[in-house]
């Protein structure tokens, strides 16, 4: 079977980017939107075809095969070289579909949303760049290729967040996103260096092969602080994932990233880029699982669980709807992480892995939908804040319905996509770690609560004083909504375990009814509470918030993470390290160099008296010179 044509899937957006980027001034807005959508349309068609092709025929003796097409790009040493290419296996195909789908939807949507914007063409160029980078990341054949596209994704995210570059907050957010993720990527890079040093390869195939150097040989490697260096390497690589996926403690950039245009948030910060961390762990899953008995994987699980819980809590308190969604995203990605973390490898044991990917898939659909819906709302009312919204269901029926579907889906309402994927995660957690399971259930409830808090606040309640009457968005924006709503319902019925598994062998997954019941009831309780609190305006939420007092405040302020970071960066890194470096440079290093010159000049001034202008002084020094030289010489001579 030949999948080499898949290389076109990322290359089409690249071509788009080059064309739109180089000629952004020349191409009229109307054309560039269509051009972008068309390009992505081709990509999605290709990737769907690939998916079909692969999942139908990609098996050999019941195991999904991995296809690799690559070209050497840069050679470091005899063993280490960077290849660029495509790697076709279940998760990459699945991700490819997700990325092209969402990207295509966002392209379509943006044609309406960005209408009339100055940098319309530029926007589409960035989108194309992002799609290219993300696809390159997804299809990476080795760690370094992934790192390359990882960075590119970061950069396009920077460009897109900072799209409204005249807005200081957008610039700050873009910078923050870039720098925070870059700091995390530092870990990624060092991890790559560590792993590649000991294994002599970047290649995913070698790294995840069960008898490869990494998995088979970790026990023999050196250890550091009680852990194998391989474990350290994996943890460091995971640090990159933590950064990109906005897990604790590198999550702080994600809420701010909402400064970007809303379609961007849907594409990057909900559906695709932020799951890169999940994808990274999934990509290296055998390594995480087998090295040092899965210690690194446990780290993944706990980071995921904690992030998911913390994010859910914070989401409850936020009033900016995009921020609510951002924290929700973080929480859901935590879910995926923890699912991976609790997963095992073989057969049905690998349920968590499957669940994680499944959730990734469904989440992409409904979260994109939520964002696009939110975008539609924002587009209508020109505000991000809940207090500026209310009763919009009358004005925006399509948005309202699709938003509701998405909310139900994310809340895990039975029958919707989210229900199925979330259930699998809970089952996996239940089977392996009870603590994580309970926290996940709690998160499920919280999720339902804050989603419906959002929903009721926006679409129910009283009308606010709108500057002009809100109206439904144009067709170009609603069509993607409808499509995604469709997906948010029916994606759940895809038999994912047939396609995506840890050991590449399909297995039968069944709904675990008791656990599903618990989860959905918790979700429904959340919805009901939200209904009570927010269906009609009341002072209940306020009283509730007051009852929790400083805890509420603490959570509302996102646990003061931002402040902590600002303290560390501004006060310590800038204020102390950077300041002292530049002070030291100016006052010690430079001064000492100048000082050498000054000393020379001042010595020169000090000794000017030697040249007294007196003839007899000169004579004395003349004779003195003779006498001194003679004495010195004789002194040496006598000895």
């Amino acid at each position, binding site marked *: 079977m030949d999948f080499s044509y898949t290389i076109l899937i990322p290359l089409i957006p690249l071509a788009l980017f080059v064309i739109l980027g180089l000629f952004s001034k020349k191409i009229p807005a109307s054309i560039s939107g269509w051009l972008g959508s068309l390009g992505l349309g081709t990509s999605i068609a290709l990737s769907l075809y690939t998916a079909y092709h692969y999942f139908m025929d990609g098996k050999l003796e019941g195991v999904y095969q991995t296809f690799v097409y690559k070209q050497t790009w840069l050679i470091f040493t005899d063993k280490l070289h960077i290849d660029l290419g495509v790697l076709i296996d279940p998760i990459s195909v699945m991700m490819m579909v997700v990325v092209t789908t969402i990207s295509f939807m966002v392209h379509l949507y943006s044609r309406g949303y960005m209408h009339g914007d100055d940098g319309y063409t530029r926007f589409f160029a960035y989108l194309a760049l992002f799609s290219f980078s993300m696809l390159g990341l997804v299809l990476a054949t080795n760690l370094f290729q992934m790192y390359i596209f990882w960075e590119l994704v970061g950069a396009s995210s920077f460009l897109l967040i900072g799209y409204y570059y005249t807005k200081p907050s957008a610039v700050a957010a873009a910078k923050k996103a870039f720098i925070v993720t*870059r700091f995390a990527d530092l870990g990624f890079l060092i991890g790559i260096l560590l792993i590649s040093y000991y294994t002599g390869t970047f290649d995913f195939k070698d790294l995840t092969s069960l008898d490869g150097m990494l998995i088979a040989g970790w026990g023999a490697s050196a250890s550091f602080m009680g852990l194998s260096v391989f474990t350290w390497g994996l943890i460091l690589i995971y640090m990159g994932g933590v950064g990109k996926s906005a897990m604790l403690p590198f999550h702080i950039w994600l809420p701010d990233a909402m400064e970007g245009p809303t379609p961007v948030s849907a594409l990057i910060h909900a559906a695709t880029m932020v799951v890169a961390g999940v994808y990274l762990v999934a990509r290296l899953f055998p390594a995480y699982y087998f090295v040092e008995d899965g210690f690194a994987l446990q780290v993944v699980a706990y980071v995921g669980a904690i992030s998911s819980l913390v994010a859910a809590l914070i989401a409850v308190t936020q009033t900016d709807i995009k921020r609510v969604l951002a924290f929700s995203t973080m929480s859901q990605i935590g879910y995926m992480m923890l699912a991976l973390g609790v997963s095992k490898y073989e057969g049905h044991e690998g349920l968590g892995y499957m669940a994680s990917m499944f959730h990734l898939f469904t989440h992409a659909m409904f979260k994109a939908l939520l964002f696009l819906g939110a975008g539609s709302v924002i587009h209508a009312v020109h505000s991000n804040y809940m207090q500026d919204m209310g009763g919009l269901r009358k004005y925006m029926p399509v948005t309202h319905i699709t938003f509701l579907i998405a909310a139900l889906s994310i809340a895990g309402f039975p029958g919707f996509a989210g229900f199925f994927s979330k259930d699998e995660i809970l089952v996996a957690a239940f089977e392996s770690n009870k603590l994580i399971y309970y926290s996940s259930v709690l998160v499920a409830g919280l999720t339902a609560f804050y989603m419906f808090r959002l929903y009721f606040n926006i679409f129910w309640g009283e009308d606010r004083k709108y500057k002009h009457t809100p109206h439904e968005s144009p067709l170009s924006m609603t069509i993607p909504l409808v499509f995604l709503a469709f997906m948010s319902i029916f994606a759940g019925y895809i038999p994912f375990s047939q396609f995506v598994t840890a050991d590449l062998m399909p297995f039968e997954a069944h709904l675990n009814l008791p656990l599903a019941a618990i989860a959905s009831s918790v979700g429904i309780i959340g919805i009901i509470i939200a209904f009570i609190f927010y269906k009609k305006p009341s002072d209940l939420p306020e009283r509730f918030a007051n009852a929790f007092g400083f805890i509420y405040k603490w959570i509302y302020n996102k646990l003061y993470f931002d402040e902590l970071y600002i303290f560390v960066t501004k006060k310590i890194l800038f204020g102390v390290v950077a300041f002292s470096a530049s002070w030291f440079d100016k006052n010690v290093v430079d001064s000492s160099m100048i000082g050498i010159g000054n000393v020379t000049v001042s010595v020169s001034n000090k000794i000017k008296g030697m040249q007294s202008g007196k003839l007899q002084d000169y004579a004395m020094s003349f004779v003195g010179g003779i006498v001194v030289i003679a004495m010195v010489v004789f002194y040496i001579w006598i000895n």
Partner: protein
Amino acid sequence: MDILSLFVIVPILIVLALTFFAKDLKQARLISVVGMGIQFAMSINLIFAYIKERAVNTNIMVFTKDVVWYETFNIHYSIGVDAISVVMIALTAVVLLAGVFISWKIDDLPKEFFISLIALSSGVFGFFISTDLFTMFVFYEIAVIPMYLLIGIWGSGPKENSAMKLTLMLMGASAVLSVGILGIYFNSNADGGPLTFNIFEIAQVNIPVAAQNIFYPLTFIGFAVIGALFPFHTWSPSGHASAPTAVSMLHAGVLMKLGGYGVFRIAMYLLPVGALNWSDFFLVLSAFGVIYGAFAAIMQKDLKYVNAYASVSHLSLVLFALLMFNRTAWTGAIIQSLSHGLLTAMFFALIGMVYGRTHTREIEKLGGIMKILPFIGAIYVITGLAYLGLPGFSGFVAEMTIFVGAFQHPDLFHRILTIVVVSSIVVTSVYILRMVGKIMMGPLSNEEYKDLPKATWFEKTGLILLLIPVIMIGVLPLGLSEMLKESIQPFLERLL
């Protein structure tokens, strides 16, 4: 006339043409552009000629030529190139041509400006083609001294002091270097045979270890000062800040590369034992320089200072990589030299354009320029991203090659230092984004900036000239890196 000597002779001819025929600015820049254009074409030609020649010629150096100069001292005018010199020559030609374009509108003493610039270039070219220590040293000093006039006459701010500091520190370093060179020379007959300045003849000799230990640091420091080795880098920030745009470009882009090149080709190649014995000491210095330069750059208020400290950081990385003693790191070091040369030249060009329009370089006073000057803004952002090592640009290739190479060092201490150095990429992104974010993005800081003139065609030409190789290296690095690796082989054989 052979293909290499032309690189020295053409600039001299241009200087003469300028001296005698240029009457005003127009003629001066016409002659310069044509001359530098020829030079540029020659350098492109050289690359292809080199590839062709390399296929049939396995000597270390190709296009060699040897003319006895000072018979008494066995000084020869001997030239030749390997891949390292070829790419450096190409870099020089590109930056020079771009520099001439950027200096299109120099108003004060234009003829003299171009003369100094081009005289300097003949030194640089000569330096890169020499395979004789003495000749190389001569060209090195020729390259350094016009700097004084270039900064002193056409600079800005405290130009006189900066120019003086720069010249004295660099010439002081070259003075130290001359002692090192003499030390090498007088030990070049250790195995019998005549004293020689020829690099490859010396490389056949086992210089006594005691001598290597003494002369290696002298030679190293002599070259490394111009490569911005901490703590001898302080000439660089003030010098760059005061220099006119094209000069900053040329200096940071090309001249500072002489340091790394010299360290590699002379100090390390000729004194391998000394290099090994001293490596830890200089390694720590250069690693410190990487981090230190990056942090110092964060706090700078003047755009050029930011870039100057960034150069300190990036060039310390070159030295760091050179001291890692393996092929990959060395390849990385050379690519880093190239990449930094192009990128920093772009940065200085851009800063010059912004300064030329707004008459300020203070970060605090600038803001939102992108809105007014979209082309400059876009290139600025691209340059910034490339500078902080974004894939697809040369910086990434260079840094990654260095990091991967350095991390292959079998010694744990070296690997730990590598990790420390790697972390500089975060600091780099901090200062780059801070700078880009502040001056290009955000609201317009000053209403007066609304009517700033757009980028002119020659400015665009200059920038694009530099950008093309940056992207070419970034996208397709394999050919370059393989070409360099081949030329690194002799170093490998001698040092390890």
